[in-house]
């Protein structure tokens, strides 16, 4: 299938998930396992996305300017910077190191 098809399929699946809670009985929320597992999936996936985006180069692990950008972003988050500032810090550090000829 083309990328366009997958874009539309993914949108449909995400909408169905949002609609599901409006159609299902609200008692489901009281099941601790449902809430616990859903919360865990969100955290696990985001952590994996951080890793893949930072140190993967297709099918191998590499260390380059992205890792330094991630470290700078973590410092920005510790200093309670807003989302857009954190993203800008990441871009600036990666771009800056590459301009200096590293990574």
């Amino acid at each position, binding site marked *: 299938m083309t990328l366009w098809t997958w874009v539309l399929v993914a949108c449909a699946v995400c909408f169905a998930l*949002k609609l599901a809670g409006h159609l299902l009985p609200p008692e489901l929320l009281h099941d601790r*396992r449902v809430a616990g597992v859903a919360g865990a999936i969100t*955290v696990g996936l985001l*952590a994996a996305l951080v890793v893949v985006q930072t140190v993967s180069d297709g099918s191998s692990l590499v260390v380059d300017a992205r890792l330094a950008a991630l470290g700078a972003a973590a410092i920005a988050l510790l200093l309670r910077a807003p989302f857009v500032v954190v993203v800008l810090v990441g871009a600036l550090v990666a771009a800056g190191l590459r301009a200096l000829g590293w990574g």
Partner: protein
Amino acid sequence: MTRADPDARPPETERLRTATRQGLSVGLATGTYGVSFGALAVAGGLDLWQTCALSLLMFTGGSQFAFVGVVASGGAGAAGTAAAALLGVRNALYSLQVAPMLGVDGPTWRDRGRRLLAAHLTIDESTAVGITQPDRAAQRRGFWVTGGAVFVLWNASTLAGALLGDVLGDPRRWGLDGAASAAFLALLWPRLRTGDARSIAVVGALLAVLAVPQAPAGVPVLAAGAGAALVGWFQVRRGRRDPGEATP
């Protein structure tokens, strides 16, 4: 927010105004990171229209970033879709929470239409602002204003970011790959308040590191999601984990 003496609460118009103001400010804040999404999506290989379609039709930031991240790292569309769907699971929990509060489950076509619209606008931000208001009217106001404001600004800023990304050219030169790492970390950060959440994040990250050299692109992320679900399951069974942390 809730006090024993009802007279001690601000009057209703004031509570509605507060809900509106919160919704609009959250919308403004979110709009600014739509620019990052638009630029990163184009840098990751999507065209302008695909990028805008994701913001219009998927309209849930985490899933959109995940889809783009997997496709950009060379993953198949199917793997990107699976990652987006897994990250969208939490929206089902949000809609379970906001459905009783919104009261749009009537049999009329008008209610059905409003329910579809409410479903589309059920995201982190609208749920968070909605459920934290002190009374039903303010909760509804908070949900709809936040959802509407985020929708308008998110889509406008996505378009701006995508146009910007087109002009910039080579994404690495501008550090856009570093920006994507930072964006994922910023999405994860507020969810790491408890020790259990942090251990799940470590498990997810480790699984991804181990899987990258072994599995095709996109699969490491899904493996981490499956592993995290398993750990979450055992944490709840041990009774340590507060299920409330799944809510914003």
